[in-house]
């Protein structure tokens, strides 16, 4: 076990009392609670942490935040493993285990690093150019590309952790818990606003945690802790640490991703989620997202040991870690001077400071007094060391990036801290539709257009001096509170010491070095170089969006956090145009990757989709029914007895219905009550057939068409009283039809006096069907005469069945004598059990929807959505009789269109196939199966008919009604053969209907 050789004796926001053991690439290490994986690795002297994406070059920790391009690790194992996590954002926990991604076979010896040696063969657009042709080779290419592409491993087992979501609303959402964000939240909260403040780190404070700046006479980090604890005690203020704002949607809808557990101080409990997605709808948003330091572009600027200057400060201040022994600091702004002093104070030897600017900085004096050699007008022109940095060349540099003469000086060092200025972190602003413009003086893209309801504050707004940052944060919080109608007083003034910001910046987009072919990386994450961008420019790319896609700069999970502005600068230089003319690319969500687990939340397993059940469900389960999913419903498919398989059970259930009596749970039917004097007229318009003349006590089958004339739903509607009607719809159409009715009543025909009320769930519906149905019911029913004369087919009666208030409909979907008995749902089980008992002496059997389908198909009854598909007219179904021309109705005019009125459309027919054929099978014209095969129709329903003792089917066939008696071919392409079938009427059984009228 190593000894944390790079840990500073004192300081940092870590808990030195709590040692934490972890593993990296199979080696054991120790860190402290409060460390990140990255800081702990640095403390242990681990420099090489990964390989680059394309060239597999050795890489080290480059940053201390979410912008990390190199230190991507695979975290954990088994079902809990997460790929491509930034080591800089992983909080160290006991037993943590991580491995480098994108290395093979090992980090030190990586075979694909050959890509670096042959990189001249892999320029930008390599894939586009190389793998275009010949087309037949693509599958081979694809395999090859897939093997070398991608990062990390997908977990191979189900994730055992819980994930969850929460919807919240607030007056003011503050993104970013640095000085600006804390001030904004404090100001808004003091005004009484409902505030949410979110920060992606474990602690609020942002840059204050990584500097020695002071506010109000105390350390910045102490000030941040004080403000945070004040916010946390307020009732309407939510303080969310470890929470990343991943997506900014329309109307200030912001998605936050919170890491709830998986860190040292995680809440206890078995059911606490690992991550939680917060869907925030904020009236006002303050983006205090800070700034990201830019890398410097120079030859071989990617070696392990090169790191952002602010990151080095972070490791020293926040984690008490020396990021190296001997350092060179290089930059183009003032921020490098305090860093040099801080590094020295931490025990790092700073051998040189290269400031690209020619004018000496006012801050230089302190560093010089500390004995640091300061080289103004100098830049890094080269580096040495493969697995870790060994030395740096510094040389005077001209404005066009040319190194002046042969004047480079070499310094031995193991750490190079670079600062190319600061870019406001504008990802969320960009997602929200904001725009940026390049500010020459500050050397960065700053917000130019900020959408309504959003405020930028602090360095996210290009304001870098701490006193100004605090003032801007407060102003943003006050303005946001006022925008939601609240008034606020001023916060006590905070006196600041330090935090003077970067000052003027000298932008240098690249170094034009000697003739050596060295790579200058613009985008470390995607391995895109200045040469790639130059090539794109030479090849004629002008749009920055095209260059992005061609070179991959700024793409992928990184979303250009580090490389974006440098790439724009390099491109502007190549094109000889000002940076603002080149424009910017769009940042896309998420800001940093969000896990699939968090996005899925608890909508998995049994809760992935609602399961709807009928009042009789428990009986079906007890009886061993096999269920089928019908939409969200669980419906009994069949009820096997003894060792029956499905075919045997279905055949038996059909026999019960045809020869005895059967019982079906039809509770899923859609049911709608209609009341009012105009219901008859309304139904005349809604249904293709007439209803206003339906007498009280009768029911009628109706066909509903869409405005396009296509069959939309069907069902039976009854007239219970003069102004009281009761409509049934298909199971799947229940909600759709009710909305359809309300839409027409509310929007088109408000003059009609009709009220609709859905009662689908109010009634349990049991279908008693078969020749013995009347005998079973006779024993249970009071008040009414069940004889065919007194209660004929298509009539409705209200009665009491086993004492329960019931509505009984004589309608039949099986072709047999049927009673559809409806009782209030609470009594459904009582009714069902009474019928089962009363039916015992008639050998009654429950039957499922599979048998129902066979029985209805034998009768040629359609199922909308099964035999129809939104392209089928009433005439196609042979139902022109009930879609006539005598009255107007929805869809009627469409039936006169040339297409719908023409002859020879696909029409519903019956088929007698020589063997069972699958539904959906195509009916073909001609004998050959070689494509293209002319298709003249398809099978819509297909069953083995128990009654006919043979396979039967229904089909839609072109001009089918004129083909009755002919033989057609049904293609079975997977078997490479055809099945012959005779075209018949779709009514296979009892065409006179004598049985159902019995």
């Amino acid at each position, binding site marked *: 076990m190593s000894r944390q050789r790079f840990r500073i004796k004192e300081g940092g926001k870590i808990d030195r009392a709590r040692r934490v053991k972890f593993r990296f690439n199979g080696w054991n290490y120790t860190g402290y609670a409060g460390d990140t994986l990255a800081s702990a690795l640095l403390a242990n002297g681990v420099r090489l942490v990964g390989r680059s994406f394309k060239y597999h070059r050795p890489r080290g920790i480059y940053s201390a935040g979410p912008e990390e391009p190199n230190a991507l690790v695979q975290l954990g194992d088994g079902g809990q493993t997460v790929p491509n996590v930034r080591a800089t954002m992983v909080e160290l926990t006991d037993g943590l285990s991580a491995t480098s991604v994108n290395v093979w076979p090992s980090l030190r010896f990586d075979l694909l690093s050959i890509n670096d040696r042959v990189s001249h063969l892999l320029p930008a657009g390599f894939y586009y150019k190389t793998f275009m042709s010949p087309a037949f080779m693509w599958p081979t290419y694809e395999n090859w590309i897939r093997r070398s592409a991608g990062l990390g491993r997908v977990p191979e087992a189900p994730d055992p952790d819980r994930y969850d*979501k929460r919807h919240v609303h607030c007056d003011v959402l503050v993104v970013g818990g640095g000085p600006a964000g804390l001030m904004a939240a404090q100001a808004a909260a003091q005004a009484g606003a409902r505030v949410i403040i979110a920060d992606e780190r474990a602690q609020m404070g942002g840059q204050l945690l990584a500097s020695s700046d002071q506010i109000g006479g105390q350390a910045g980090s102490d000030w941040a802790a004080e403000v945070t604890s004040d916010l946390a005690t307020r009732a309407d203020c939510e303080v969310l640490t470890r929470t990343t704002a991943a997506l900014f949607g329309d109307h200030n809808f912001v998605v936050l991703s919170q890491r709830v557990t998986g860190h040292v101080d995680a809440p206890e409990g078995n059911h606490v989620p690992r991550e939680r997605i917060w869907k925030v709808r904020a009236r006002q948003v303050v983006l205090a997202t800070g700034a990201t330091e830019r890398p410097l572009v120079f030859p071989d600027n990617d070696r392990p040991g090169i790191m952002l200057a602010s990151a080095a400060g972070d490791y020293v201040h926040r984690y008490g870690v020396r990021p190296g022994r001997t350092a060179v600091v290089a930059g183009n702004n003032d921020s490098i001077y305090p860093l040099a002093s801080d590094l020295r104070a931490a025990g790092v030897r700073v051998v040189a400071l290269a400031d690209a600017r020619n004018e000496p900085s006012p801050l230089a004096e302190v560093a010089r007094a500390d004995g640091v050699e300061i080289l103004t007008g100098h830049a890094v022109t080269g580096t040495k060391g493969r697995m870790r940095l060994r030395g740096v060349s510094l040389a005077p540099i001209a404005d066009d990036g040319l190194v002046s003469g042969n004047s480079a000086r070499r310094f031995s060092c193991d750490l190079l801290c670079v600062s190319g200025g600061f870019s406001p972190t504008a990802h969320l602003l960009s997602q929200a539709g904001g725009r940026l413009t390049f500010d020459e003086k500050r050397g960065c893209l700053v917000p130019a257009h900020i959408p309504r309801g959003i405020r930028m504050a602090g360095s996210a707004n290009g304001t870098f001096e701490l006193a100004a940052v605090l003032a801007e944060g407060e102003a943003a919080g006050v303005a946001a509170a006022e925008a939601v109608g609240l008034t606020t007083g001023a916060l006590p003034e905070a006196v600041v010491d330090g935090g003077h910001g970067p000052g003027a910046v000298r932008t240098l987009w690249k170094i034009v070095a000697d003739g050596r072919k060295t790579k200058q990386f613009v985008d470390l994450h995607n391995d895109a170089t200045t040469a790639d961008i130059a090539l794109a420019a030479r090849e004629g790319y002008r749009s920055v969006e095209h260059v992005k896609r061609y070179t991959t700069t700024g793409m992928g999970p990184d979303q250009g956090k580090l490389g974006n502005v440098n790439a724009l600068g390099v491109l502007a230089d190549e094109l000889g145009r000002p940076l603002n003319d080149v424009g910017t690319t769009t940042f896309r969500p998420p800001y940093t990757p969000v896990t699939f687990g968090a996005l899925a939340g608890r909508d998995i397993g049994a809760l992935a989709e609602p399961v*709807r059940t009928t009042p009789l469900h*428990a009986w079906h389960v007890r009886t061993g029914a096999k269920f089928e999913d019908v939409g969200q419903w669980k419906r009994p498919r069949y009820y096997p007895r003894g060792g029956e398989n499905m075919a045997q059970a279905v055949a038996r259930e059909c026999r019960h219905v045809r020869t005895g009596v059967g019982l079906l749970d039809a509770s899923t039917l859609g049911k709608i*009550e209609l*009341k009012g004097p105009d219901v008859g007229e309304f139904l005349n318009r809604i249904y293709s057939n007439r209803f206003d003349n339906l007498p009280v006590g009768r029911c009628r089958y109706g066909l509903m068409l869409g405005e396009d004339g296509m069959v939309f739903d069907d069902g039976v509607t009854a007239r219970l009283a003069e102004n009281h009607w009761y409509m049934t719809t298909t199971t799947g159409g229940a909600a759709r039809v009710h909305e359809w009715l309300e839409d027409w009543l509310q929007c088109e025909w408000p003059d009609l006096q009709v009220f609709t009320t859905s009662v689908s*769930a*109010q009634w349990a519906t049991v279908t008693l069907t078969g020749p013995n149905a009347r005998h079973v019911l006779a024993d249970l029913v009071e008040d009414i005469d069940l004889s065919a004369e007194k209660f004929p087919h298509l009539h409705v009666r209200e009665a009491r069945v*086993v004492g329960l208030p019931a509505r009984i409909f004589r309608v039949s979907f099986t072709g047999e004598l049927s009673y559809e008995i409806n009782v209030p749902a609470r*009594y459904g089980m*009582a009714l069902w059990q009474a019928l089962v008992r009363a039916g015992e002496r008639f050998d009654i059997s429950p039957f499922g929807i599979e048998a129902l389908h066979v029985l209805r198909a034998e009768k040629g009854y359609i199922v909308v959505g099964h035999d129809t598909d939104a392209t089928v007219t009433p005439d196609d179904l042979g139902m022109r009789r009930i879609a006539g021309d005598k009255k107007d109705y929805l869809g009627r005019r469409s039936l006169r269109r040339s297409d719908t009125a023409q002859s020879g459309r696909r029409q519903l027919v019956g088929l007698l196939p020589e063997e069972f054929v699958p539904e959906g099978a195509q009916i073909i014209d001609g004998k050959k199966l070689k494509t293209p095969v002319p298709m003249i129709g398809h099978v819509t329903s297909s069953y083995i008919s128990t009654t006919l003792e043979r396979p039967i089917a229904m089909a839609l066939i072109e001009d089918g009604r004129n083909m009755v008696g002919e033989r057609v071919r049904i293609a079975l392409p997977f078997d490479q053969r055809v099945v012959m079938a005779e075209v018949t009427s779709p009514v296979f059984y009892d065409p006179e209907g004598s049985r159902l009228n019995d």
Partner: protein
Amino acid sequence: MTDRSFAQSPLAALHIDGRVADASANPGVRLQERRFPDLLNLRIAVADHAIRQAVGQALGGVLPHQANTTSEAGGVVVCWLGPDEWLIIAPHGSDSLAYQLDAAIGGQHAALTDISDARAVIRLSGRHAREVLEKGCDLDLHAKIFAIGDCAQSGLAQAAVLLRRLADPAPDETTWEIYVERSFGTYLWMWLEDAALEYELAVEISD
């Protein structure tokens, strides 16, 4: 025979009373099925002030006309569902109420429909009740916005619900009634149980 012994509540198959043993000592969330309330759906045309008034009187108060509010008189709660639609919630066995309302309507154009069996009713309360709802409902449920006595139709998880906020049982607790179509009852109950686990759940015996 139409007594309660034959009647099954929408969540009967869950055997909720058997789950009471899981109760935590200090539950953050309590769940309960409210069984067999009388539910009447009422529709009266927007402009029909006379019927509205008559029905309001029969209910011992007025029909709420402000969106997403309820009125309450004599144990009967009326929820606003739309400009021409209300849900009347009455204690079990309020049979005479429908007759009184029918009489108030007096054969004019209106629709009074018994939907007592069409809804599962789940009562949710406790310190974390609101957070449980916020896991699946995107309405603003904050006390300043969703006051006691308010109601709203919305989505909860993947079901359509009517939410109604009742009086707070304790200063830091809230109580809600969730009305969901009967067929979704089991799904929604299981979803709520699962959502409440992290706050510690107690299942209470149904009333």
